[in-house]
């Protein structure tokens, strides 16, 4: 990647993010806040699928854990910061437990195991009424205060700042971590497990820790979802969301966190705005095919292509 075009692109995105609350209406800002939640889900999927080489259909599971955890905390009167931290911790513990099975698998088997984890979680969200509210979902979630003494966030501007700001912090932290030796270890496990083992690295442990981190990222996404829509139901954490997320990752380029977030934005834009009533699945399907053929490395590949 060339340095100056990248820096310019980063600056342009940041400026745009700062300007948007001044120019967009309430509804558009809420949509972007929702994209931030879904973007974290997509980024966690990209982290596992692209960077760690563990293709996953199951990140909706820690996302659900984060959402329901934050929902309960909101009912109990916890501020947003606490909701986010506890949701991340709960999702991390969940990912630790499921990861014990997931990191033993690769390729198609990994897809199937994670699909099962995701589906079982959606079923649990549906059946475990005392905790999740069942099919009706968890409703009447009180408006979230970001910090102690803050105002309850009801409108687009504060929710936009809260969701986009939190997502940026999580994404930058993850991106920075991937630039250290830890990132080299994770990519090493993806590229050549045999080499990593022959050099004495604990491949299973490295992948498990990555799975836990990805779970926490998805969990924060779930907490943002609760804050933004003040409601969560099994439909928010079901297979359709998994499929949309994977589509976002394919569009964005599997190995890129930022691409995945951009992909999530594209998917939501198509689904909510561009598609005529009832045509969203068709349009998203076409988008998928186009993404695979036109951008084999996703949106993140555009920059690299230009360099090549």
């Amino acid at each position: 990647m060339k340095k100056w075009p990248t820096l310019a692109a980063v600056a342009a995105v940041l400026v745009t993010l700062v300007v948007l609350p001044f120019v967009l209406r309430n509804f558009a800002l809420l949509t972007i806040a929702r994209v931030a939640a879904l973007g974290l889900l997509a980024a966690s999927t990209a982290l596992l699928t692209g960077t760690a080489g563990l293709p996953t259909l199951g990140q909706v599971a820690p996302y659900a854990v984060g959402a329901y955890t934050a929902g309960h905390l909101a009912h109990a009167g916890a501020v947003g910061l606490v909701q986010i931290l506890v949701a991340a911790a709960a999702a991390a513990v969940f990912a630790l437990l499921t990861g014990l099975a997931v990191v033993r698998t690769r390729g198609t088997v990994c897809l199937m195991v994670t699909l099962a984890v995701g589906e079982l979680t959606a079923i649990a969200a549906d059946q475990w009424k005392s905790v999740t509210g069942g099919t009706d979902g968890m409703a009447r979630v009180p408006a979230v205060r970001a910090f102690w003494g803050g105002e309850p966030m009801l409108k687009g501007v504060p929710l936009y700042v809260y969701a986009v700001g939190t997502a940026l912090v999580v994404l930058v932290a993850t991106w920075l971590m991937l630039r250290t030796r830890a990132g080299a270890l994770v990519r090493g496990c993806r590229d050549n497990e045999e080499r990593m083992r022959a050099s004495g690295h604990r491949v299973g442990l490295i992948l498990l820790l990555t799975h836990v981190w990805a779970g926490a990222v998805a969990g924060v996404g779930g907490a943002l979802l609760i804050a933004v829509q003040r409601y969560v139901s099994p439909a928010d954490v079901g297979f359709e969301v998994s499929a949309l997320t994977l589509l976002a990752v394919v569009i964005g380029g599997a190995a890129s966190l930022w691409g995945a977030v951009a992909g999530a934005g594209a998917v939501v834009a198509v689904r909510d705005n561009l598609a005529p009533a009832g045509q969203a699945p068709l349009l998203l399907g076409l988008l998928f095919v186009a993404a695979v053929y036109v951008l084999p490395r996703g949106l993140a590949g555009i920059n690299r292509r230009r360099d090549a």
Partner: protein
Amino acid sequence: MLELRGLSRVFGSLTAVDGVSLTVSSRHALIGPNGAGKSTLLHLAAGNVRPSAGRVLLDGRDVTRAGPGRRARLGLGRTFQTPALVDSADCGTNLRLGGRAPVSLDDVGLGGCERLPAGALPHGRRRLLEVAVALAGAPRVLLLDEPAAGLGDDDRALLLSVLRAVEVPVLLVEHDQAFVRAYADTVTVLHQGALLASGTPSTIAADADVAAVYQGAAC
């Protein structure tokens, strides 16, 4: 020191390694025609393949039940016949992932390749990089599977000088007789999975059985 005791490995109806006992304590070459079981023996020693019978001792410790990662942490370094590298990472990162021993890319003639992805290296250079990666792990015993295959004369000479500077026991699989004679002080010949002969390079070169095997295999 690496001791292999009565190692066997059966794949279906094929006995790839057949009751091999071997002690690696110096510059040890392992030769034999294609399919003799050399790579499988290295896999058994490094823990990549489980033995059907036999034991592996590393510095006197029984590691037969340990996996490849644990054996590596106990000091077993290795390269693979098809070089195993982190292709997306640059050569410098590959070297650092190998370990902290003071080995440089310069040492294996890859001085300018610090920022080059390992996946972009031609095949021979990949072998040299993998040797450096294995050395960076500061191994107590080193296993090398055909490190000189496909190298030009200059790279071969470079590899030879790198290997001569290695102070720990090495088990080296190599086809080239000249390279073996120049490097090894002990040679073991494997044939159809079994140990055929073992001795100094000159006694092996004069061995009639060995000559017969190599002629039969047209190697």
